[in-house]
């Protein structure tokens, strides 16, 4: 293969990675805020407590700013398959296209239509009907997550399909939709979304506690956030860990690379931190902090389970698929998994501490912790992005596990120059969006929650003009 072709694929991969990760900066917050804002509005609807209405408005505003970029960058994702990966598209369309098209029909219409109704319908719809619109918006965002995860999970574990005449063809939509990989990945993503939104609500509330402003309003918000966050962040650690077992079953090479495990071990120790040992020429780390048997437990669910090593899997794959390098980038997968898991665990620790402090009635006065909670807003984002890096880089060299390699999947008609140009366009555009979005989110997160009712309504300081 010529150097030029490699560069084209590399650029296409860089573009896909950056635009996808960027898109996923906005997805989890929408996924989580949608149901939580719906809960807030429901609490207002049930109790008539004005604080919940003000919180609905406050966090609804953040949700909208966030959702707008999600929509704008989501379109890029759909187009990009065809633009940069036409061979992939033609190979997988029969299987992968269906969940994508159904996502549009079942989820995007629901999301966009009912969000419009929610935003503009406060005075046009009855209160119950209006409440229903925000729940339907939340349902739409969940459905969207489900179908796109079904599509992605098929790339990790191709089920319900067969390869005929050089392309994958769908044979069972039921198997596609009930892919074990998809079910667990979907649960994982939903919990990530709820975690992100709850951390944001908690962090924003703590910021207001620090300022001593709007404490009465944000106290119930922080409480709601913690009621969600403590169990969800704990359960998500377990779900993530179980997903690891599922991966072990279908993508053993991904797990071996994630653990920098060159040779098969039984039982296998879990490496907490290591220096070196990330390449074929350097398989033994110069420093390694390990917990015995833990990897066996995480990967197989049993303390004595056998975990296959990269050298053995490489030999096996050469037999199965022919000559080639089937080892994904080890350092990247190793560290992305640890960044994901460690920051995910930190989220749980922060949540548990916050709950403890709140239970003792000291949360609002413990200033150092309030700052920690504000800073923790970054944690779920770091964790989620690292998780996607792990999932996608760990699958390499495959674009569809066992069926098609990434290096063979790009668009033959698209030149290096063209992709470099489009990468430049996206860099400028996305950079601009990121700056403006961050400034807006910060601005609106720091405002007082909008006043409701009476004359104060029109003159509310939150309007920004």
């Amino acid at each position: 293969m010529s150097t030029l072709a490699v560069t084209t694929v590399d650029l296409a991969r860089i573009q896909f990675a950056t635009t996808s990760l960027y898109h996923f900066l906005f997805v989890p917050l929408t996924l989580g805020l949608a149901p939580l804002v719906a809960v807030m509005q429901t609490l207002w609807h049930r109790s008539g407590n004005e604080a919940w209405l003000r919180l609905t408005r406050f966090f609804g505003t953040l949700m909208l700013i966030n959702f707008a970029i999600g929509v704008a960058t989501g379109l890029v994702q759909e187009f990009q398959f065809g633009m940069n990966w036409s061979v992939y598209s033609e190979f997988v369309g029969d299987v992968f296209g269906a969940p994508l098209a159904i996502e549009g029909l079942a989820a995007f219409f629901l999301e966009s239509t009912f969000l419009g109704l929610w935003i503009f319908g406060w005075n046009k719809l009855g209160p119950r009907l209006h409440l229903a619109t925000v729940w339907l918006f939340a349902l739409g965002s969940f459905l969207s997550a489900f179908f796109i995860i079904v599509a992605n999970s098929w790339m990790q574990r191709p089920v319900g399909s067969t390869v005929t005449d050089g392309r994958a063809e769908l044979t069972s939509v039921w198997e596609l939709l009930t892919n074990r990989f998809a079910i667990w990945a979907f649960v994982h993503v939903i919990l990530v979304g709820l975690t992100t939104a709850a951390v944001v609500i908690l962090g924003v509330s703590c910021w207001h506690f620090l300022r001593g402003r709007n404490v009465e309003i944000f106290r119930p918000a922080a409480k709601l956030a913690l009621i969600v966050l403590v169990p969800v962040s704990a359960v998500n650690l377990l779900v993530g860990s179980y997903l690891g077992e599922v991966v072990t079953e279908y993508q053993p090479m991904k797990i071996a690379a994630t653990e920098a495990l060159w040779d098969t071990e039984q039982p296998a120790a879990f490496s907490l931190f290591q220096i070196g040992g990330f390449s074929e020429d350097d398989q033994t780390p110069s420093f390694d902090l390990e917990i015995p048997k833990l990897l066996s437990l995480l990967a197989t669910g049993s303390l004595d389970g056998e975990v296959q090593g990269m050298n053995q899997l490489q030999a096996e794959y050469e037999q199965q698929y022919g000559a080639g390098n089937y080892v994904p980038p080890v350092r990247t997968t190793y560290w992305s998994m640890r960044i994901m898991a460690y920051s995910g665990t930190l989220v749980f620790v922060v949540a548990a501490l916050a709950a403890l402090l709140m239970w003792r009635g000291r949360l609002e006065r413990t200033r150092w912790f309030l700052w920690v909670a504000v800073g923790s807003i970054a944690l779920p984002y770091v964790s989620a992005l690292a998780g996607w890096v792990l999932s996608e880089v760990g699958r390499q060299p495959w674009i569809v596990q066992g069926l098609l390699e990434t290096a063979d999947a790009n668009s033959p008609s698209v030149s290096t120059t063209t992709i470099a140009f489009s990468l430049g366009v996206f860099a400028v555009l996305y950079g601009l969006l990121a700056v403006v979005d961050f400034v807006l989110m910060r601005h609106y997160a720091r405002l007082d929650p909008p006043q409701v009712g009476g004359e104060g309504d029109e003159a509310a300081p939150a309007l920004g003009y």
Partner: protein
Amino acid sequence: MDLQLLWFLIIAFFWAGYFLLEGFDFGVGMLLPFLPRDERERRVMFESIGPVWDGNEVWLVVAGGATFAAFPAWYGTMFSGFYVALLLILAFLIVRVVSFEWREKRESPRWRATWMWANTIGSTGAALVWGVGLANLVHGVPIDADGHFAGDFFDLFSPYTVVAGLAAVLLFAFHGATFLTLKTTGDLLGRARHASRRLALPAAIVAGGFLAWTVAVAMDKNDKDLFPPILPAAAGIAALALAVVFAFAGRAGWTFTMTGAGTVLLVATLFTGLYPRVMVSQPEFANSLTVEGASSSHYALTVMTVAAAILAPVVLLYQGWTYHVFRGRLGLEEEAGSPVDLVARKTGGD
């Protein structure tokens, strides 16, 4: 009817729906610098499409998704072949999407003018490039024996495709101005009527000319007979002529019906001129992609048909209901604003 033809029609249906709906919100965007005299009128224009533009854009997402699922080879060749054009469309749509949210976030007139222009440029640019792009499906682009695009960005431009882009811009501007005559009151309404009349003839002439030209191009480049493409083309020309008549007669509702019909028939003419191919190849006509050759398996199409049969009617129902909810005219006394501020403001209830 076989499933391949059905999905070809469904995709044509989604494109038609996309242009019918997003067409008028593009048009409103194009007119933003010209119709309003002050900030309040600009807000009315933004609010006239505020609740619906996002749902309108989903028609595009579904058209793209359906092409991917039902005709993977068409999707792959078209999207990689029209790379730079689609990149431009994405850039136009992205700045447009955020302009809806961000314009009102600051008081500074410069900030607001910037995002208003972003919306206008995004709306005009996207309409122009879509016109050029879709016309190329019939006009033909270089495709090699493997079914891959073999040309470059400049192959997309010919007199015919450029006229297609202009037709889309003018028709959507007319469609949008007419939409505003149904949604506004007072001075703004007067100016919208004036704009609708001013745009009527140029739009009808260019779009009508494009329809006739499409029939000729389909016969010349795609081996079609005069019949059937002449049917939707003639109906489209008639609808556009009626739109002009109604615009000058001051019948806003009928004008809008006819600009809508003209838009739908324009898409119908393109797709009728295209069938049984999905992408014409020029100069090597034999390399053209066909409905049969580019499609997914029978099973995949069956699954999609079942899904669409269940979901599409529900979608049409609730989207139609949204238009019903927001059917009224927007007076200047009613505060308009960006979605974000509306949430902040309107959550108070009455």
